[in-house]
Structures are given as structure tokens and as C-alpha cells.
């Protein structure tokens, strides 16, 4: 029996097998390629999560010489009865609920406008996108002036014969004022996501709808909106996750005031941890916030999935 006849069928049969089950050497190389990322994420992502969970069951101040003291569910129980914390949760929910519809709805409108073949459309898009690439601290400083007694908004009011208003210093308007700024900041990023979604909808669907005599509204309702559903789910979820963690704009515009009316949970966590040195209690707040964000984005995703 010659070697050649034996080798022929054997290699033919083993080829797909090789691809499915790579050699030991190749698996080791794969592990080596991934090892730095795995090690890093284990130390700087996964371990901090577990460590934070542990801290949330302790009383711990970084100024103490001692180690964290285990207090069981004590922090969580205290949060349930803390007016300050419950107010911050209310503020966070209200803030997300105020910003989300406008940040998504207006962005969708802008995307529809910007999704046209016009000369210079790139410049319009760039202009609308600009707030996205500017640091939140920088834009917050401008808006701080816009809302100030000498600012643009109050000068417009004066021109209209109305009395000026200290938007950020009034308990009733401060959160709305921050929300307006945040809508403005979020529009560009959301618009770009919607634009990508619009451009992914096949042109043939519109042509078919037009042939069936569908008007502009019918085409929007039955082609555009269903085609945008995956992007819509993504945009809403990402916005919830980001908005529920608002911090920099609060820090600059209001410092959490007046009377805690703009103290979001994330801002309270910062104060509790790095101004009051209560790491245990702040960690417990962080996990409650985590649960809230998870629940809200879950509900949003499920809700969007069902509405079909």
C-alpha cells in the first residue's frame, strides 16, 4: 500500500476538523492575545464591582486607619429611610423622563431633515453635531451664563417686556433648566445614530410604498419607523444609561441645589463618598442606582420589542 493513497482521503477528511478544533498551539496563542485585556478587565472592571458590592455592606471611611467594618444590610436599610437619597432618586427619574422624549424626538426630526441630498449638507450636519464633541464642562459654563441674570435668556425676556428670572437658583426651574441644556447636548449624537439608521433602510422599500400610492406620512409610518426600530431601541437605552448618570452639568450649573432639587443620585454618591467620606453608604447608593438603570433600560427594551 502506497503512502500517497492513504494520505489523500485522510487530509481531505481532516481539513474541516482542523478548522473546527484548532491546534493546542493556536489555542495557547489565542489565550496569549486575549490575556492582557482579560487581566486588565478582571482587575479594573470585575474586581471593582465585587469590591464595591462588599463595601456596600460595610461602614468605611478612607480617613480611618482601620479596615471596612461589616454592617450587613445596614446601609441599604438606612437608604430606604433617607429623605435625601429618595429625593435624589426622584430627581434622577424626573431628569431622565424630561430629557429623553425631547432628546430622542427632536433628534429624529433633525435626522429626517439632515437625511437629504442638499448642497452643503455636510456642513449642516457638522453644525448640528457640534455640541456632541464639546466637553460637558465647557458647554455647561456657557449655559451657566445663558441662564445668569445678565445672560442671553434674561435679556430676551427683558426685550419681550417680561421680568428676568434666576433660572438655576429657583427650586421650581433649576432641574428643567439643566434638562434643556442636556437635550441640546444630546441632540447631535442621537441624530447621527438615527442618520445611520435611516441610511440603512433599503431605498426599494420606499419605491415599493410609493408604487402602492403611499403618501409621505404613510411612508414614514410604515417604512421609516419600523426600519428604525433597532436604532431606536439602542438610542433610548443608551440615553437612559447616560442620563441617569448625569454629573458634570449638575456640578457646574447648580452644584446640586437649590435645596437638593437638582441633586441626582450620581451627584449624591460623589458627595457622600468624596465630601462626607462615607464609602460604604455611597457604594450602597451606587448599587441601587445600578439596579434602577438596569430596570429602566430593561423595561425600555421590552416595551420597544412588544410594540410591533
Amino acid at each position: 500500500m502506497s503512502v500517497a493513497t492513504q494520505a489523500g482521503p485522510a487530509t481531505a477528511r481532516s481539513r474541516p476538523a482542523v478548522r473546527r478544533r484548532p491546534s493546542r498551539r493556536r489555542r495557547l496563542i489565542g489565550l496569549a492575545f486575549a490575556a492582557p485585556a482579560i487581566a486588565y478587565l478582571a482587575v479594573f472592571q470585575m474586581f471593582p464591582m465585587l469590591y464595591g458590592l462588599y463595601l456596600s455592606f460595610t461602614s468605611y471611611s478612607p480617613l480611618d486607619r482601620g479596615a471596612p467594618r461589616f454592617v450587613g444590610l445596614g446601609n441599604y436599610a438606612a437608604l430606604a429611610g433617607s429623605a435625601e437619597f429618595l429625593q435624589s432618586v426622584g430627581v434622577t427619574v424626573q431628569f431622565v423622563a424630561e430629557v429623553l422624549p425631547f432628546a430622542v424626538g427632536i433628534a429624529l426630526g433633525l435626522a429626517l431633515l439632515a437625511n437629504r441630498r442638499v448642497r452643503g449638507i455636510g456642513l449642516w450636519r457638522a453644525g448640528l453635531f457640534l455640541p456632541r464633541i464639546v466637553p460637558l464642562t465647557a458647554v455647561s459654563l456657557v449655559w451657566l451664563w445663558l441662564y445668569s441674570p445678565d445672560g442671553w435668556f434674561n435679556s430676551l425676556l427683558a426685550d419681550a417686556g417680561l421680568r428676568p428670572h434666576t433660572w438655576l437658583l429657583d427650586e421650581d426651574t433649576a432641574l428643567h433648566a439643566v434638562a434643556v441644556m442636556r437635550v441640546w447636548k444630546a441632540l447631535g449624537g442621537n441624530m447621527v445614530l438615527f442618520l445611520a439608521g435611516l441610511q440603512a433602510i433599503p431605498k426599494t422599500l420606499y419605491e415599493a410604498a410609493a408604487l402602492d400610492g403611499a403618501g409621505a406620512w404613510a411612508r414614514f409610518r410604515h417604512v421609516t419607523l419600523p426600519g428604525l426600530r433597532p436604532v431606536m431601541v439602542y438610542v433610548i437605552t443608551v440615553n437612559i444609561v447616560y442620563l441617569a448618570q448625569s454629573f458634570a452639568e449638575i456640578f457646574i450649573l447648580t452644584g446640586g441645589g437649590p435645596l437638593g432639587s437638582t441633586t441626582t443620585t450620581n451627584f449624591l454618591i460623589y458627595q457622600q463618598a468624596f465630601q462626607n467620606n462615607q464609602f460604604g453608604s455611597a457604594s450602597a447608593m451606587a448599587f441601587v442606582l445600578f439596579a434602577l438603570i438596569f430596570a429602566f433600560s430593561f423595561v425600555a427594551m421590552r416595551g420597544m420589542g412588544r410594540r410591533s
Partner: protein
Amino acid sequence: MRRPGALVALATATILVLMPFWWMVSMAFKPEAEVFTQEPRLLPAQPTLGNFSVALDDGNLGRAMLNFAIVALIVVVANCVFALLAGYAFAKLPFPGGGAVFLAIVSTTMVPVAVTLIPLFLITKGIPLAGGNDLLGQGGSGLLDTLAGLTLPHLIGPLNVFLARQFFLGLADELGEAGRVDGAGELTVFWRIYLPLAKPLVATVAVFAFTAVWDDFLWPLVVTGSAETQTVQLALSRFLTGGNVAYGPAMAGSVLVILPILAVFLFNQRSFIAGLSEGGVKG
């Protein structure tokens, strides 16, 4: 455009969106007397460059921009190297347990910053042999108030590992097999065959890594304190002290900070926007 109404709407929306920037630039050139007035004017009556020199001298903004550039460069390079290598391994060089590890990595993208903030602060403070620490990470300040400390939470983004894996899954296995038949080692297969095809991925990961540092305010606020280590986000917030704002220098500083990224953005608008929307289409 057939209907002029749409163009008018587009122009109105753009002008409204850009108004705050108009005021930012205008105020950057206004002397102090013009900033604090009841009737703000769209253009400065007596333009001055004084605010810019105040921002650069008192605000130490030049140093802050340099600091930011260093931190951003480290983070972008680390992500482009390690997130790509890991994503490639998960897609093309599967190893036992890799699937579970990948799922664990992806699941961490949902975790809010607040959850890991305090532990990361303690870890940064406890890095062994740094900042006067002993081998057990005790006794000193670790990497607090250092540029290295600023990079720590952003070095490898879990989302970037995810994007890299998805991208490499979309490239044919046969490309690598052909290289291996020709006797190429795994590193050569990655470097010479797959990486040249992954330029859009590199651009996306670079943009994502950059924006992660660019958008971050909380971490710099927590880990840095001195003027020597602060980055632009923090330096800008320093114009606000006890409710008083030096608006002129603050706006001049904002303009200086925005100009470089604006230039990068305008010249690479397509890849910039494509990069930022990538997650939306693929995720």
C-alpha cells in the same frame, strides 16, 4: 431640495443649536465690562485677547491641554493594541472558556461608573510601589494625582473588545488559513493579513477610546487635585469658584480647548461620525 420649508427648518435648527457657541466665542473676546452687562451684545464692541492670556496663565490651560493629550494618547494606543488583539483572539483563535470570558466582558459595559468609582479610587491609591506605597500598596498615595492614574479606568474598553470581535468575525477564516498554509505564524497572520483589513475598526476604536477620556469629568475630579496633573475638563471647571465665574477667561479657555478637536472633526467628519454611529448599527 424640492420643498424650501425643509431647508428653512434645517437652517433654523442649526442656527439655534449653534447660538450658545456664538456667545462662547463672542464672550471670549469681550473685556470684563462688556461681559457683566444687562444688554449682552452679539459682537464685542472692543474685542480683546486678554481673556486668552488669562486662561493660559492663571488657568494653566496649556499644561492641562498637554496633560490631556498625553492621557488620551496612552488610552487610544492601549485600546487599539489590546482591545484589537483580544477581539481577534475571541473571533479567530478560540480557546477553552473564551466564550464565557467574552460574555463576562460584554456584560460589564452596562455597569454604571458610580459602581466602580470608589473601588477604582482605592485601587489607584493602593498600587504597590507607586507614590510612596510599599509592596502591599500601603503608606502612600499610589497613582492618585498622576497622569497614569487618570488613564487607569480607560485603558481597555469592554465595548471596544466587543466591536473588535464582531468585526473580525465578519472576515473570512480562509484568509488566515491561506497564510498558515504558506507557513506564516499567528502573529504574522494577524499583522499582515487581518490588521490591514481592519482600518475602519481601528478608526472606530480610536474614536471610542478618545471620547471615553474626553467626556469624562468625574474620574479626573476624583483622582487629580493639583494644577500639574489636571486635564482640560477639570481646568475649565476651575474658572468657577464659589458661585463666581470668570466668564471671559472661561469662554476663551473653552474656545482654545475646542479648536483642536474641531479641526480634527471637520477634516475627518466622515470617519468621525461613522465611528460614533458604528455602535448603533452593530450593537
